């Protein structure tokens, strides 16, 4: 089989020699060559007359992208989509956003730099570079310095290159050939399978060890507090109850006591303090439909939706119910009546009065007089009497 020459390599012992060799190689006009050393040699890029790297532009572009993305994300989430007041600061609190912007900038810039360097400049993944696994590569990654002049160079001429490299007094010369037998393409099934297995095993082991074996709460101050949750027993109090009743006479904020609580047929009831305005009736409708309609039906006809799971209530359009004063209906909601429970704790005072007003509307609608119809027709422009 015909071996194809990749280049000729020369090995040197000291960094000074390699700098001199690099300089001479440039002077001799070779362009396709490279220098290898086990560690960064100061001054080598000047000796090789390398142009300043373009890598910085990748860093710049991705860094700026990072700043913009971070700012946009915080602007969108904190000021537009879900504005929250935090510490009394404005929704767009730039100083608070700067640390995050800075971090994201640095993160994106460094990642892009490393990835850009590896892919664009090191041409990763290149699995079968001819220099791999050569004696030369083993030496220059240990304690030698080397220069390779590649056969693809315009001025390459095997004997001349040999002569030239020998004139630099290397400790050895080596011819490097393209590997003859197999190549190792990146998408070879074995290689890909290997990568997948490695990825699965490492992520599985990492997950298992970090989340199951070694799981530690980062800090527990919020999780474990010296307090009792609702319904938990207490060892502190003699009666063993964790939940305490408020001190006698304690009044909740905004609480207005109801004087007729517990009376079945009060002789006296409250006056309705709310006018049936549009908003009030809207509120009443909403609350009626939520709290009352399951039993009393959407229009108060007593047509329960509960299918016999609870006794059907009487119609709210009976003459008895129509003759109730507003205060009496309020009393029934607040106190309950016979098997109908009290709704005092679910429905606020204002909402109860709104429901009362709304029931009045329902009752009037079911028992409308013709004068009512005339008013309605006038307002809607309808001719409902026909």
């Amino acid at each position, binding site marked *: 089989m015909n071996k194809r020459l990749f280049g000729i390599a020369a090995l040197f012992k000291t960094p000074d020699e390699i700098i001199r060799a690099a300089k001479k190689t440039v002077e001799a006009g070779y362009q396709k060559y490279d220098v290898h050393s086990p560690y960064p040699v100061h*001054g080598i890029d000047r000796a090789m007359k390398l142009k300043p790297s373009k890598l*910085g532009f990748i860093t710049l572009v991705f860094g700026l992208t990072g700043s913009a993305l971070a700012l946009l994300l915080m602007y969108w989430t904190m000021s537009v989509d879900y504005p929250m007041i935090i510490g*009394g600061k404005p929704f767009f609190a730039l*100083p608070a956003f700067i*640390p995050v912007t800075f971090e994201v900038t640095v993160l994106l810039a460094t990642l892009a730099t490393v990835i850009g360097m590896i892919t664009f400049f090191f041409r990763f993944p290149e699995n079968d570079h001819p220099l791999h696994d050569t004696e030369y590569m083993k030496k220059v990654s240990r304690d030698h310095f080397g220069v390779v002049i590649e056969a693809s160079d315009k001025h390459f001429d095997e004997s001349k290159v040999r002569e030239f490299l020998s004139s630099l007094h290397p400790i050895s010369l080596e011819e490097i050939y393209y590997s003859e037998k197999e190549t190792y393409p990146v998408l070879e099934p074995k290689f890909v399978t290997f990568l997948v297995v490695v990825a699965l095993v490492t992520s599985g082991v990492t997950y298992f060890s970090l989340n199951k074996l070694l799981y530690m709460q980062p800090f527990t101050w919020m999780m474990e507090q010296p307090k009792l949750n609702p319904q938990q027993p207490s060892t502190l109090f003699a009666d063993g109850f964790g939940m305490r009743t408020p001190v006698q006479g304690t009044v909740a904020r905004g609480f207005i006591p109801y004087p007729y609580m517990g009376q079945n047929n009060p002789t006296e009831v409250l006056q309705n303090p709310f006018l049936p305005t549009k908003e009030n009736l809207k509120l009443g409708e909403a609350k009626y439909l939520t709290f009352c309609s399951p039993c009393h039906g959407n229009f108060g006809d007593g047509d329960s939706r509960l299918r016999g799971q609870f006794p059907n209530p009487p119609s709210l359009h009976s003459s008895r119910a129509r003759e109730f004063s507003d205060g009496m209906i309020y009393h029934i909601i607040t106190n309950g009546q016979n098997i109908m429970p009290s709704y005092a704790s679910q429905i606020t005072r204002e909402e109860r009065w709104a429901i009362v007003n709304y029931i009045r509307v329902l009752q009037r609608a079911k028992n409308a007089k013709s004068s009512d119809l005339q008013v309605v027709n006038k307002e809607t422009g309808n001719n409902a009497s026909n």
Partner: protein
Amino acid sequence: MHQTDFKYQRKDLPAGFSKFGFAFLLIGLILAVAAFFVDQSRAAFNYLVIYMMIVSIALGSLFLIALEYVAGADWSTPFRRIPEFFAGLIPVLFVLVIPLLLLNHDLFHWAHEEAVKQDKILEGKAPYLNLSFFVIRTLVFIAIWVLFYFLLTRNSRKQDTTKDQTLTSKNIRFSAAFIPLFAITITFTAVDWLMSLEPHWFSTIFGVYYFSGTVIAALAAVTLVVVVLKEKGYFNPWITDDHLYSFGALLFAFVNFWAYIAFSQFMLIWYADLPEETFWYLTRWEGSWVIFSLLLIVIHFVVPYAMLLSQPAKMNPKRLKFISIWLLFAHLFDLFWLIMPNMQPLKKGYVFSWIDLVFPILGIGIVLTIFNFIAKKENLIPVGDPKLKRGINFHL
């Protein structure tokens, strides 16, 4: 390439140094004295600005020298004489500080005994903030700096003739002793001379804030002189692009460091929103001070950051010369911003006065004159330093 054939011929500094220095000093002095007669309080505050500027350059330079020794740096050895000359301003501080000590009543609210008596907080701080302790502190600090200035530069100078390598190891030990002392003294200096102008205010990062500006000022001054002298052939061929790049990189780093510290101080105070801390910034947001505050960000961070970002910019002599003048101005501007709003009549906003323009002239005059006075007698390059050869062959 190895420059083993090292031959140093002493040359006098360019005549401009002494001529300009003397002219600035003379004009500055006359105008400054006039300013004191016109508005003593304003002149005192302005004088404090340039005093702190000179402290920054002088002390910062001494720090750079010590840093070279403890870090074992050799790239800075060829031009180490420049910070040594700038550090020569330190003994002069003994004289420069006298007017400020005499004018303490104009500068410091806490120096007014009757005001302290009516103020619980100031009364509590009185064991530290009282005139006698203040004067003692100031003088002791300057004495420490002077001591180390003489120790370090004397050995360095002696080495020129003796070529004695043990002097370097001695200096390493002195530097190691100096750096912690430097950290302590510069912190207290910042607290005493800058923070205590507003005695109710406190910020624990303040010493670091002043330090960051100090290093910028000293580095910029050294860079400026090195580049100017290199252009005039004084440092050829010993200072290369690699040295210049290092100057640019260091300046860039400290511009970022300053911004980091300045922002850290601001953000914590802004976030916590405690009235006993925020009022200091609110004063600097009052009236026309808001322009100064915003300009400070641009001058001290945005512009130098953008100008030093790219790799070629960091070793371009023209760019370096411009940016080091710019940064010297930025530090002066920073000090102005720190100091002037504390002046009672300026609390509500900045009002221009010609006095503000006078003192920088005096400052330039003092620095140039002293620099020239010391440099005249010395070698521009520490010819006996064992690290010199490596410093000249410095490659990135």
